[in-house]
């Protein structure tokens, strides 16, 4: 049987961030991690081709990237499709999800990928495909690849599959009916659960209700209100004064900074930089307004569309930053804004 693997530009050995807009290509044979896949798959499945695509190319031109790759695959024979592992790399995870979803739909073969639970790709695509629970960085490459390969073999050989948690992938929300052996009716199971709950003993629900983490839509301001208000600028693009005085981390940030822009008309080259490790910094270092658009905001201030720009802009780095830390930082920044009566903000992401 045959398999094909999708990699980003980095694992595909094309280059780093500077080549993140690499157009997709397909190489006959095994590049980079494909060899680890082959080792884990043994003799049953041969990885015949490796597809390599830049994370930014897929992120910014998703449909075009998918169309190009579908075209490359249409004359290939393959029984399984792998992507990644993507670890915590958000763009890579999203890319793996996009391509796996398309391949599964078009070619009707099993698709398998792997990501860390902090990867936004998990929430985006877990319902659509097998996303194996991966490590936080490429240090777990071998472990993550092996998990994907072993499951592929189970699938292809038609072996009995266990529930998601036991197999090691993120639950897809698919419920299968099973019969307990020896049988225990639902009536008995629910009373057992209730008795445990009443006695303060641990029990496990059969149906976890997911907590909704949605923010309610803030009521709209009127244009009149907006014309009286100071609007704050916030970014996850890592724009900081040159020298990074607060030592905000370039990835997996746990710190944020606030920087005084009173009286400034724009962010001047040489005074501001980006410390974000997730993209080529050249454009931002040359003109930080492309990420924190102070110059545009000042024009709107002069025109009276907004009352002003809040004296501080807030900054942190989004790449590799955990959802938990991001939520904490967000709450802290919001608290500062509320203290100063700020009611509106624009958050720019990269």
């Amino acid at each position, binding site marked *: 049987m045959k398999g094909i693997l999708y990699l980003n530009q980095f694992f595909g050995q094309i280059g780093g961030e500077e080549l993140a807009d690499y157009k997709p290509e397909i190489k006959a044979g095994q590049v980079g991690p494909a060899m680890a896949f082959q080792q884990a798959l043994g003799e049953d499945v041969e990885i015949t081709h490796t597809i390599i695509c830049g994370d930014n190319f897929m992120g910014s031109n998703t449909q075009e990237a998918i169309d190009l790759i579908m075209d490359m695959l249409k004359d290939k024979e393959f029984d399984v499709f792998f992507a990644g592992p993507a670890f915590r790399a958000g763009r890579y995870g999203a890319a793996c999800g996009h391509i796996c979803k398309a391949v599964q739909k078009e070619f009707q073969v099993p698709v398998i990928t792997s990501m860390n639970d902090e990867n936004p790709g998990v929430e985006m695509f877990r319902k659509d495909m097998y996303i194996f629970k991966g490590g936080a960085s490429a240090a777990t490459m071998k472990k993550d690849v092996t998990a994907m390969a072993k499951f592929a073999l189970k699938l292809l050989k038609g072996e009995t599959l266990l529930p998601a948690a036991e197999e090691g992938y993120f639950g897809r929300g698919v419920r299968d009916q099973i019969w307990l052996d020896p049988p225990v009716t639902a009536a008995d199971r629910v009373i057992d659960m209730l008795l445990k709950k009443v006695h303060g003993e641990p029990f496990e629900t059969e149906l976890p209700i997911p907590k909704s983490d949605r923010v309610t839509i803030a009521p709209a301001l009127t244009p009149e209100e907006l014309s009286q208000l100071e609007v704050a600028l916030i970014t996850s693009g890592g724009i900081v004064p040159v020298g990074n005085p607060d030592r905000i981390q370039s990835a997996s940030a746990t710190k944020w900074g606030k920087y005084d822009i009173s009286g400034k008309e724009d962010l001047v080259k040489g005074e501001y930089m980006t410390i974000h490790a997730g993209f080529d910094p050249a*454009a931002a270092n040359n003109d930080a307004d492309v990420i924190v658009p102070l110059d545009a905001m000042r024009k709107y201030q002069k025109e009276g569309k907004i009352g002003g720009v809040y004296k501080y802009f807030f900054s942190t780095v989004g790449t590799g930053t955990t959802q938990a830390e991001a939520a904490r930082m967000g709450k802290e920044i919001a608290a500062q804004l509320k203290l100063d009566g700020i009611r509106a903000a624009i958050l720019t992401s990269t």
Partner: protein
Amino acid sequence: MQMANLIPVARTVGVNRLVPTISIPYPLGDPATPKEEQFKLRYHRVGVALDALTADIKEPQLFKVKI
């Protein structure tokens, strides 16, 4: 409200008012174009973002941009 390039990611995490940017490394100004053009694009999209703050929406919305 948020200005971002990876729209599917923003949708998934539940951003309510969303305006697209042109890329990851330079969200609001393509360095391959003249400064005036970059500012025009930035001014337009920031304007859409400010208008989003005054938009009475009932569900999460991606606001359209012209340039």
